[in-house]
């Protein structure tokens, strides 16, 4: 069943498959990875795939690999996702993204009056106060941000 669903999209030779994205979040994953029309390689996206967990989205990107920082960004908006690295049609590594307890330097605070949004030599830092749904709290001004706010303020 799973194989059949996944095969709705062609296998890729080299690149990444981001699987188990919460239903409906695939476009947002592409957005935070800064993948838009001019990427130059094939991107395939399946939304609302039936799975054991109910429903998921899958994204496949050819000839693209992810940095640690990008994986952390995915964890923020799709904490259930797994990232599979494909080489020569084979999965060479597979790991679940993990939402850390602290988020450093990948999101800016949404509060325009937060000191981190002024010209100060600090990196924005957040505490994860809830993992499901994701809610993070600024270490400086204590403002809380949900997924939509995070997407708008990704660095």
């Amino acid at each position, binding site marked *: 069943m799973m194989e059949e669903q996944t095969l709705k999209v062609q296998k890729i030779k080299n690149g990444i498959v981001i699987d188990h994205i919460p239903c409906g979040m695939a476009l947002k994953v592409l957005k935070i990875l800064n993948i838009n029309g001019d990427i130059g390689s094939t991107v395939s996206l399946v939304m609302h795939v039936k799975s054991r967990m109910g429903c998921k989205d899958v994204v496949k990107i050819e000839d693209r690999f992810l940095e640690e920082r990008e994986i952390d960004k995915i964890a923020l908006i799709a904490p259930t996702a797994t990232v599979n690295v494909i080489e020569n049609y084979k999965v060479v590594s597979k790991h679940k993204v993990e939402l850390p307890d602290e988020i450093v330097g990948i999101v800016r*605070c949404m*509060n325009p*009056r*937060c*000191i*981190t949004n*002024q*010209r*100060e*030599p*600090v990196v924005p830092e957040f505490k994860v106060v809830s993992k499901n749904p994701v809610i993070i709290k*600024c*270490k*400086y*001004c*204590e*403002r*809380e941000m949900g997924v939509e706010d995070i997407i708008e303020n990704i660095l």
Partner: protein
Amino acid sequence: MFKGRDIVSIKELSKEEMEIIFEVAREMLPIAKGERKSDLLDGKILATLFFEPSTRTRLSFESAMHRLGGSVIGFSNPSATSISKGETLADTVRVMDSYSDVIVIRHPYEGSARLAAEFAKNPVINAGDGAGQHPTQTLLDLFTIHQEFGEIEGLNVALIGDLKYGRTVHSLAYALSHLGANIYLVSPELLRMPSHIIRELREKPMETDKIEEVIGDVDVLYVTRIQKERFPDPTEYKKVAGSYRITPELLKKAKDRAIVMHPLPRVDEIEPDVDYTEHARYFQQAFNGVPVRMALLALVLGVV
């Protein structure tokens, strides 16, 4: 427990720690009143970094430091300093830190006290950061209630007026609720306490827009100013502000021992005649800023 510690947010202080602060503040009372001399902080320097105007907070910190034999440096008008040349807060703090033993900061941006604490080696005390925290105000409010009733747990406390924008009521509500008080929120619909503040309280408070509904039940009436600027229509402001005014007539319905508090400055939310009733505590409350700040300075500098 306190030596070298930053006081940035009330949320970082446990009940036991607050009780220690109150105990030390009580010991400070005769010195705060000038009845006894002290050289507890002789040779120590407090730097006051006030990036925003303030009278009570700044002067009570200065009074506290002088009463304990220490000295004060600082500014209350940043336009006359290198900040107007574009210096970062981080740099200002590092320099002032090297000139002093403890820093008190008020700044218009939220989170600025946390940032200052990161860059300073010596303790930093937050005297208000934008719409954020103002822990020493909360401590002096709690101390005033504690002095009056001997405890906070089980008391009925009404927070009245502008509960939306008033930062003092946000941290006070949090602290009171975690110390076991029952909270009543009394405000016009437009100025209700934000839901994210209510979410952090231990129990859901009672909310109403009518003072009369709670006046007979509460031990403390904590009144705040309703600002004209919050209302698009000035006639609406007059109507609303009038219905939250504390008068001697209204207080006839209150418990005998009920007290009226206000962070000051007041405009006309408490009638001047209330000053002469048994209920008025706002000037006592303002004075309590001195012993509480003395206690904090002495504790973070490790001399008590």
